[in-house]
């Protein structure tokens, strides 16, 4: 992807985040270009999920700045209701609303937050559901669905808001291994369509396939930013090498 020609969608400058005394993010700098897929890798507890949550205002930050389309989205005066419509997020625990059917879950944002026309939103929801192969489950309740299905619905729910960028926070980590594929395929499909995404994952094969750039984070710092092939074949840092060895052992 020729990101040089594209505008910077999201820019993180010198981001610091602390929980009490513990530093979780220690000076993160990153630019995400339109249409780019950035995969964030790193050991558990390195701060990668926190990084993603900062981008959506779910965490407050202590220092640094995040800009979205050149506008700062840090501090107290951010209209998060507005901004979050543009920044879709899918979490690890398939957090559909259990008291609503699939279609109600998807329609909530478009009709109640964006106040869009119901017919038009329904049409888009139907198309998206069809695309992830779950149209016939539109009147089911979340408890009637498998984990993989729930996660695909959660993705559709976020997509139906027409976001500019999607954040995925270990969306397959809680899934049965057999269901990982169906969810990753949906995300891969989005990447092919040119959706801008920041993905936190532990699926190395997937990371390699989907990423334009791989970001390796350790102890709250970015250790390495590389092209995926380069990262997986010859990582620049020793820390990344160690990290990859662990996964090779698994395979």
């Amino acid at each position, binding site marked *: 992807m020729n990101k040089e020609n594209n505008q910077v969608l999201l820019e993180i400058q010198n981001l610091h985040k602390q929980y009490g005394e513990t530093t979780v993010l220690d000076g993160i700098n990153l630019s995400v270009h339109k249409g780019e897929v950035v995969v964030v890798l790193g050991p558990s507890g390195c701060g990668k999920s926190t990084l993603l949550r900062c981008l959506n205002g779910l965490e407050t930050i202590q220092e640094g700045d995040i800009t979205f389309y050149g506008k700062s989205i840090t501090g107290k005066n951010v209209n998060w209701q507005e901004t979050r419509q543009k920044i879709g997020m899918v979490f690890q625990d398939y957090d559909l609303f259990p008291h609503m059917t699939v279609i109600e879950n998807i329609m909530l944002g478009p009709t109640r937050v964006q106040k869009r026309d119901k017919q038009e939103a329904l049409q888009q929801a139907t198309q998206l559901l069809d695309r992830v192969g779950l149209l016939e489950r539109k009147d089911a309740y979340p408890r009637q669905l498998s984990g993989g299905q729930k996660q695909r619905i959660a993705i559709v729910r*976020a997509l139906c808001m027409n976001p500019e960028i999607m954040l995925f926070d270990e969306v397959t980590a809680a899934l049965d291994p057999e269901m990982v594929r169906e969810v990753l395929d949906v995300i891969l499909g989005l990447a092919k369509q040119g959706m801008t995404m920041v993905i936190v994952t532990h699926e190395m094969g997937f990371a390699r396939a989907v990423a334009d750039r791989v970001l390796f984070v350790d102890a709250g710092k970015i250790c390495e930013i590389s092209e995926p092939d380069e990262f997986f074949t010859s990582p620049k840092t020793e820390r990344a090498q160690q990290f990859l060895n662990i996964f090779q052992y698994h395979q």
Partner: protein
Amino acid sequence: MQNLGISVLFEGTALQRLFSGLLVTASIAFISIVIAFVLGIGVGLLRTSNSKVIRYSCKLYLEMFRIIPILVWLFIVFFGVTAAFDLDLDGKVVAVIVFSLWGTAEMGDIVRGALESLPRHQIESGKALGLNFWGLYKYVLIPQAVRRMLPGAINLATRMVKTTSLVVMIGVIDVVKVGQQIIERSILKAPAAPLWIYGLIFILYFLICYPLSRLSKKLEMKWEQ
């Protein structure tokens, strides 16, 4: 064996009086429960507020009703507050005020418990969709909390119905008081009268409370489906 005592129920206007007493009991309970449930949702929201001052004042309010017996509250308002502010309040009005305040505090606690028991990521995924504070509560949190607070709320309602029997102490003639009056009048000629009168009162309370627990079961089943 001519008189088993059951006849006291059918003498004169005894039944009629018992039912009018029941009406007093039921109306105090019903009005207080409705007020308590509506205001209790508000107090429950305040108790999950970010402000410590608001949280602690609401907690203090609840503890005041938990620590001080309801009977004492009835006395405080009926004898104390009315005298201090030179008010002339009917016992029934005082009863509704005290029971509403108590019910609101308890209901607030039930609502708080239900809200806090909801998984945190429900809030986060609601926020991630761009819902504002009210939208989050209206579409995501309250509908889920209602399901969780139902058993506690019904329990509270039946407790409130039963506790209304205290209103006798501030001069309100409720179903229990009417029963006592009938017993006192007929105790000499029908020594078994208390059994029949209190037996009937038992059934009357049951008739009020049982439908409530049936209703809660029904709703739970319906939401379970």
